[in-house]
């Protein structure tokens, strides 16, 4: 049987789709949907291949590192690809009803380019190649935010572009220092060669700073709420679910493989990384508090959901000070659960906006009776974000709590409870207004059924994730990206 190059297909297919959508704008929705379905199937193919054969390394151009560029799939990158495929398919279906043709013809090529960039990023084993994919992703994301037009969206897109370019330049400077220290940009080779040196420390500082800016960890989150709230709803969903996670993924990958303390003499380096991990944990905790409080204070639904993303990003960083396999798994499960739930939530917000023409929380005016599916989606997604059983969010928080207690740092677990309470408060605030009558009656618009159902399916998926946790967690073991031994 001929070996299928799924690794390559999941990058080339969305690019081809983008080109086709660009060439024939009139058929753009059909081409886009076909690509999305094909891509979903290809990721399944890749999953099957990796399950059969274990972690894969693919030498593009046949050269192999260090001269060429390698692609690498292990459990970690596979999970990211699957999250992207699931969320991507849902967003594609939602968008096919959301955009009219005049904007669909711009949306589809940009979105498929973004999808290609995400897949390429998760597959790359080369830190310079990751820079190129970061730029590809950043420019696509910015153009998508600007798609809604209007002063707020354009200003937000401009700020997002500058932040994104700045983050990439910090990252690239780090790449330059690492390359000139060790003569390679391949992650696997670097992980063998890296030792504690001033250049490596400065490179770590630059790359971490640049990636935190892109991931919008408090206090570098200032650009996220305007960008994520003013974008068209499907774009908000994919930014919150996928794009901020991509830079988190790179940070995690570098943290685990390029910056680790295991292969050097314990001492200064280990201590340094320990300190940095504590700082990241503290920032994460601050993000949970700040994002939660800000979300509560918002009067606009989409801004509320955007601040909820700031909070959820904070959770991810609580795993750094724990530094255990179970902690990392918990963080990734949280990432998965958040991606699915937040997609549902932004879609629900988009439906409400579509229906009522505004997203002022105080004037939701009995939206519960009018859009029951949408409001159920919002509520179910909220349950997962709060971390109530049996949702995916619950399993993730449970694991993180376990990791915190095992490592003797229970106080990080406390943040999960605080975050859960804050999330509960703002979710119920929205639901409360959704049942009450408002003084300002709506001019009801028509919401296509497809948009309601996709939101609901994603919300149900966020709940169901709590029941099938062992599967994704076992997937993460492939290629043991978190190392073999426990600390």
């Amino acid at each position, binding site marked *: 049987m001929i070996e299928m190059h799924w690794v390559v297909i999941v990058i*080339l297919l969305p690019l081809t789709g983008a080109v086709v959508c660009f060439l024939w704008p009139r058929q753009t929705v059909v081409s886009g949907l076909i690509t999305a379905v094909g891509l979903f199937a290809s990721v399944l193919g890749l999953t099957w291949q990796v399950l059969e054969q274990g972690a894969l390394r693919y*030498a593009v151009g046949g*050269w192999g590192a*260090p001269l060429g560029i390698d692609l690498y799939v292990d459990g970690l990158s596979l999970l990211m690809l699957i999250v992207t495929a699931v969320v991507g398919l849902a967003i594609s279906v939602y968008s096919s009803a959301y955009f009219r043709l005049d904007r669909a013809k711009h949306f589809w090529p940009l979105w498929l380019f973004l999808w290609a960039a995400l897949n390429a990023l998760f597959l790359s084993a080369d830190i310079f190649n990751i820079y*190129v994919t970061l730029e590809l992703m950043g*420019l696509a994301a910015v*153009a998508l935010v600007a798609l809604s037009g209007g002063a707020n969206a354009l200003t937000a897109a401009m700020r997002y572009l500058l932040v994104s370019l700045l983050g990439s330049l910090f990252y690239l400077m780090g790449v330059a*220092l690492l390359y000139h220290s060790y003569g390679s940009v391949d992650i696997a080779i670097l992980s063998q060669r890296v030792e504690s040196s001033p*250049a490596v420390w*400065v490179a770590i500082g630059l790359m971490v700073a640049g990636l935190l800016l892109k991931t919008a960890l408090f206090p570098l989150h200032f650009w996220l709420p305007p960008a994520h709230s003013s974008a068209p709803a499907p774009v908000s969903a994919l930014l919150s679910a996928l794009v901020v996670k991509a830079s988190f993924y790179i940070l995690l990958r570098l943290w685990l493989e390029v910056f680790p303390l295991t292969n050097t003499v314990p001492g200064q380096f280990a201590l340094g990384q320990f300190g940095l991990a504590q700082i990241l944990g503290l920032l994460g905790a601050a993000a949970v508090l700040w994002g939660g409080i800000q979300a509560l204070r918002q009067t606009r639904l989409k801004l509320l959901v955007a601040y909820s993303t700031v909070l959820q990003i904070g959770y991810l960083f609580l795993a750094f000070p724990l530094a255990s396999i179970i902690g990392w798994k918990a963080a990734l499960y949280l990432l998965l659960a958040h991606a699915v739930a937040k997609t549902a939530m932004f879609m629900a917000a988009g439906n409400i906006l579509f229906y009522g023409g505004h997203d002022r929380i105080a004037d939701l005016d009995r939206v519960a009776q009018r859009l029951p599916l949408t409001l159920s989606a919002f509520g179910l997604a909220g349950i997962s974000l709060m971390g109530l059983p049996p949702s995916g969010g619950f399993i993730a928080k449970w694991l993180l709590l376990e990791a915190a207690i095992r490592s003797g740092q229970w106080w990080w677990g406390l943040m999960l409870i605080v975050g859960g309470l804050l999330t509960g408060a703002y979710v119920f605030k929205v639901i409360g207004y959704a049942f009450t009558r408002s003084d300002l009656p709506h001019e009801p618009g028509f919401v296509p059924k497809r948009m309601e159902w996709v939101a609901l399916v994603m919300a149900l998926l966020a709940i169901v994730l709590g029941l099938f946790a062992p599967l994704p967690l076992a997937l993460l073991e492939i290629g043991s990206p978190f190392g073999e031994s426990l600390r």
Partner: protein
Amino acid sequence: MNNTGENTIPLSLRLLLMVLLTVMAVGLAYAVLSLPAQAPGLSVYAVENINISGVSNPVTAVLLNYRAYDTFLELGVLLLALLGVWSLGCAGCQHQSSPGPVLDSLSRLLVPILIMVSGYLLWAGAHAPGGAFQAGSVLGAAGVLLLLAGWRIHAGLAGLPLRIALVLGVAVFALVGAVLILPGGQLLAFPPAYAGGLILLFETVATLSIAISLTALFLGADPDEEDAS
């Protein structure tokens, strides 16, 4: 009148920023100076394989063979920037000042020269400094000059033909790169015997795509839509 726009930040914050950035600069300088005084990097590998790379200019070998995948994605970035610009529509593109006689005759003189230089750079890239990016940008400069002189793309070419030209680079990389998998190779793995020819093909389409993309970026809006409105 000539407010540079920096007055919004109070002096104390600016001083704090200067201190922080000075600390950062000292750290960066220290990092650079601490690097080993000699390091060959990957030049040994790059030279070792130059005979099977299809070209003799090592930079071209890296760009179009060893790390051709980067170049492929980078053409994607260029196309994407254009998609982004087109999706924005164009603010203030309509009114173009009419070109003076100087610009007109200048473009008549310079455009053929630029095209020739571009052709030379494209051909020379295999063995001397030059290559697709340089050739493409010089050709793009010729396009910009034509635009400045008042030339506009023929309405019949502004739709699909223009779009095909824009995606040519990405499409050929994807297509040929994928075809190379079929005989049991990898994506973008050039058999040494054909490497030279394939690189020339890639460089030619990349040159055209880069030139047209850059010209289109300069124009700002989708010419097809401009006509429609």
